[in-house]
């Protein structure tokens, strides 16, 4: 047989879809090929070889994201029975199901990276892994539910939209679906808020008080400014934007929409600096963020305890699924 490589003309190697890090090469060479591909904007699939540094970083990131989706349903769940109308009850129930579904989709990504769902839940319940700060707080009124669905989900979608460019392709694809569902949540939340501001003085106050409560945690949510050069997740292009870029994006879109409703953002320093081209704000309370995400927030322990209880109560379901169903067989 003719050696195809002996034929003319041959395209340069660069133009081919070769994935040299998958070849049987010394580790350093593989690593260099992998790093060059990823830092140039290339995508990685679950079946690709990847250095441990990358695998661990993606896993940690996706796991924290999945945990946040799973824990994030708890504050909203508390309001399903108290939703003011049937339509709101249905919408909130659907949102809670969506968020649980997001956790499932993300845990699937993490499982393919090598950590079992069992181990993920184990670590979450033992306090070894984290979930987002905003889900460690109590909810006080239906106004909180509007502000959570509108602004917490909005702050999240800003980050999630950027993750559609993640170098880890299974994660990026999952984010496509999640972002589509999140946009419904934001509409639901905004509709709740707009309805309340059009209501009685009491209902209006209820939203304003909710905004006052949530503004601090919202500003902390994306995390402190980080050094771009030292951020490993940025280096590997697991995420595409820094925390400050995400916060600026959130402020640019949502400050005008909040003010449009006559609501007052509880930060006297908040303003757009035309010259610098960015928003100025009171430095968020980073001590509060650290306290809360290490499970010392006002509802951290109660929410984890609820999950532990829930896990025990549903154990029989998992066991039945794995063992087959004796009830059906009998």
């Amino acid at each position: 047989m003719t050696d195809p490589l002996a034929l003319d003309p041959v395209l340069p190697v660069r133009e081919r879809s070769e994935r040299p890090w998958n070849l049987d090469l010394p580790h350093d060479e593989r690593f260099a090929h992998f790093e060059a591909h990823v830092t140039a904007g290339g995508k990685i699939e679950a079946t690709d070889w990847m250095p441990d540094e990358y695998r661990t970083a993606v896993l940690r990131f996706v796991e924290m994201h999945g945990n946040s989706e799973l824990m994030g349903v708890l504050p909203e769940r508390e309001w399903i029975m108290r939703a003011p109308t049937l339509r709101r009850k249905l919408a909130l129930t659907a949102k809670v199901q969506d968020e649980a579904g997001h956790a499932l989709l993300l845990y699937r990504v993490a499982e393919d990276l090598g950590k079992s769902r069992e181990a993920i839940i184990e670590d979450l319940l033992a306090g070894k892994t984290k979930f987002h700060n905003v889900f460690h707080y109590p909810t006080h009124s239906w106004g909180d539910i509007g502000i959570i669905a509108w602004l917490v989900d909005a702050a999240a979608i800003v980050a999630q939209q950027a993750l559609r460019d993640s170098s880890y392709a299974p994660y990026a694809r999952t984010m496509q679906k999640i972002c589509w569902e999140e946009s419904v949540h934001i509409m639901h939340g905004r509709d709740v808020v707009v309805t309340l501001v059009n209501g009685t003085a009491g209902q209006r106050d209820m939203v304003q008080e909710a905004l006052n409560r949530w503004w601090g945690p919202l500003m902390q949510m994306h995390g402190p400014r980080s050094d771009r050069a030292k951020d490993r997740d940025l280096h590997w292009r697991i995420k595409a934007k820094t925390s400050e870029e995400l916060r600026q994006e959130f402020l640019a879109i949502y400050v005008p929409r909040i003010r449009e409703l006559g609501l007052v953002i509880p930060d006297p320093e908040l303003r757009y600096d035309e010259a610098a081209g960015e928003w100025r704000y009171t430095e968020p309370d980073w001590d509060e963020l650290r306290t809360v995400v290490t499970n010392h927030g006002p509802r951290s322990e109660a929410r984890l305890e609820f999950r532990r209880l829930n896990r025990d109560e549903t154990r029989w379901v998992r066991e039945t699924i794995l063992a087959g169903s004796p009830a059906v067989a009998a």
Partner: protein
Amino acid sequence: MTDQHSGTLEPYEVFRQEKEGGPMIHGGNVLAPDPELAVHYARELFARRSESTRLWVVRRADVHVLDDPDLLDPPLDRSFKKPGGYVMRDKLAAARGRAGTAKPGARAASHDTTGRRTGKTG
């Protein structure tokens, strides 16, 4: 129940069709002990908003993968296999010059790519 539960969970890949006649697009995957539950999970995750008209649920182990670039993307110039591999604008102009004919109107029906502004070669 016809399927034996094996006692282990396995990944199943889910493909969705958005509208009748459309392509099956990979949606994601689920973990299930058997095909029956895999289909139920797939329905909950990928079709609860009327966003799919059909789902294909395939055991990951049953998917045969070909991703060898030597076979899929051989290092040879294969532009002759693609419509964009034929650039004849100048030759056509020359032919019209020899025949003394005019260029047909832009709206003339065409099944090749000679009328297009950009023809990707390679």
